[in-house]
């Protein structure tokens, strides 16, 4: 098995073995943005993306089943009433159910009702979060794609990142990688359609540099983000991807997990593993196919 396939298989194995840890347990107090809810949303995001790229067999069925079966046990509407920002999570659920063939109708109704109440305008999202929500709503058919408005939103988001790279905090590096995902619509749209050819060249430069900074820092979580970006931008920097895979394979735990750094020493073992393992599970699918989704 190639290092890439080994990394992917190991990560899916770890996720399947730990899928219960992504789910809110009965009786848990659930703040709307608790770590477990965030973890569950991430599980849905990467499962959805993997199903889209790799088809129904791309994700171990036990993972899809666990996530889908758990959904009705949670009161999504209450969360949305408590926190309008929860709209993003419910739109993520809609995308997941659409991808795995589930019934998204109840969740679609919640999103439609929230949109009718003008929730989006009241959220006061940061520009890159605004781009994320716009993309989610367009993907699931709640909103028509408005190229000019999206480009304006992306422009605002990049203004916030117009500082030299040494001034980037880790959160800025994640914001950059997420923006590339939104601009490229996870590989289904050419970046230059949104940011122009010069903008695309700048994105490639930033991804190439930031991805290597992640490797210098030994941050395999962030490195995986930029591997995805590299694929979405057309596979322009295979050396970055090769080196990131080599390191992920070398450092993968026997359980299959790939571990994220913990500079503050405060993260639980699960939190240190779930995000980077989800990322590498998906990245392994994307890279193994040797193409970006756009070219599919």
């Amino acid at each position: 098995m190639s290092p890439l396939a080994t990394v992917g298989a190991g990560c899916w194995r770890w996720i399947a073995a730990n899928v219960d840890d992504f789910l809110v347990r009965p009786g848990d107090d659930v703040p709307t943005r608790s770590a477990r809810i965030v973890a569950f949303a991430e599980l849905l995001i990467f499962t959805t993306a993997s199903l889209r790229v790799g088809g129904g067999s791309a994700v171990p069925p036990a993972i899809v089943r666990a996530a889908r079966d758990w959904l009705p046990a949670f009161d999504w509407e209450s969360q949305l009433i408590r926190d309008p920002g929860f709209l993003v999570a419910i739109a993520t659920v809609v995308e997941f159910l659409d991808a795995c063939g589930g019934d998204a109708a109840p969740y679609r109704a919640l999103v439609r009702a929230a949109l009718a109440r003008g929730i989006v305008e009241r959220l006061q999202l940061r520009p890159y979060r605004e781009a994320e929500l716009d993309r989610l709503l367009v993907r699931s058919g709640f909103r028509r794609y408005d190229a000019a408005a999206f480009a304006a939103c992306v422009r605002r988001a990049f203004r916030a990142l117009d500082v030299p790279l040494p001034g980037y905090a880790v959160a800025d590096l994640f914001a950059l990688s997420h923006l590339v995902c939104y601009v490229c619509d996870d590989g289904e749209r050419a970046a230059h359609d949104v940011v122009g050819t010069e903008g695309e060249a700048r994105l490639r430069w930033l991804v190439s540099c930031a991805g290597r900074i992640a490797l210098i820092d030994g941050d395999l979580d962030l490195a995986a983000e930029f591997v995805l970006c590299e694929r979405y931008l057309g596979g322009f920097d295979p050396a970055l991807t090769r080196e990131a895979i080599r390191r992920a394979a070398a450092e993968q735990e026997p359980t299959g997990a790939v571990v994220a750094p913990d500079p503050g020493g405060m993260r639980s073992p699960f939190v240190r593993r779930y995000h980077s393992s989800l990322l590498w599970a998906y990245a392994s699918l994307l890279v193994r196919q040797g193409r970006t989704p756009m070219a599919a």
Partner: protein
Amino acid sequence: MSVIELVAPTGSLDDAFARAAAWLRALGDELDGAAAPSAALWLALGAALCDDRMTANAMLARAEAGAGADRSPGDVLAAALAFALADRRPSAAMRALLLRGAGATPARRSAVGMLLGVGGAAPVRLRSAEAAAVLLGGGPAASVADVADALEAFGADDDALASAAFARGFAELRGHRAFTLGTSLLRGALALRGDAIGAGYVTAYVLGQQRLDGAFGHLPPRAPQVGDIRLAFHLPRTVRSLWTLRDASAGFAIVAREVARAGRAV
């Protein structure tokens, strides 16, 4: 206009150089005759980078006058470059001083030796794959410094290293103590690849370091700032900043150009 803007510089390059040159001149006027030759050497390189050859020569003469065996020349590569840019041959005492202090890395020893016309000094050739691994691998600082010196002075046989050098350079610049290594790596990266985007980001970063008085460099709030730190801190930072801006705007490393020129002259 691109959706993704380049980090907006706070002013033009010409303005930055003019303000820095004025700051350097003012500092040179105040320089105590008993000051270490390193200060005069830094001032000479700064003047040369600002195309002020007269001041550069005056400062080099001053440095030579104080070049006793017990004096530190500071950054010997910068000093040797100052002589090269001013087209001035150093005195025997200065040459001895610079060669004695040139031992930081093999590449630096060779570069300084070639700039000073020392027989036997030869280019250091990097193996690209190994050098990139050093830059990305968090290897020992001495190895990274060696790669940086070799890149800046001698280039490499392909541009595969450029991305690694840009990344390592910017990564180093997150910590204020690694300004020397960070800017050296960025100059090395610029030497490897004619990269307008990279040069733009380097320029924007360095211009952002300039202070209102024309000097470059900032300290973290808790760093000790006892007494006058212009000679010890702002002077070398200012000259390294000008050096990096020159390379970024020229699209090549001036050290490599001068080393090549010296090599041809031997």
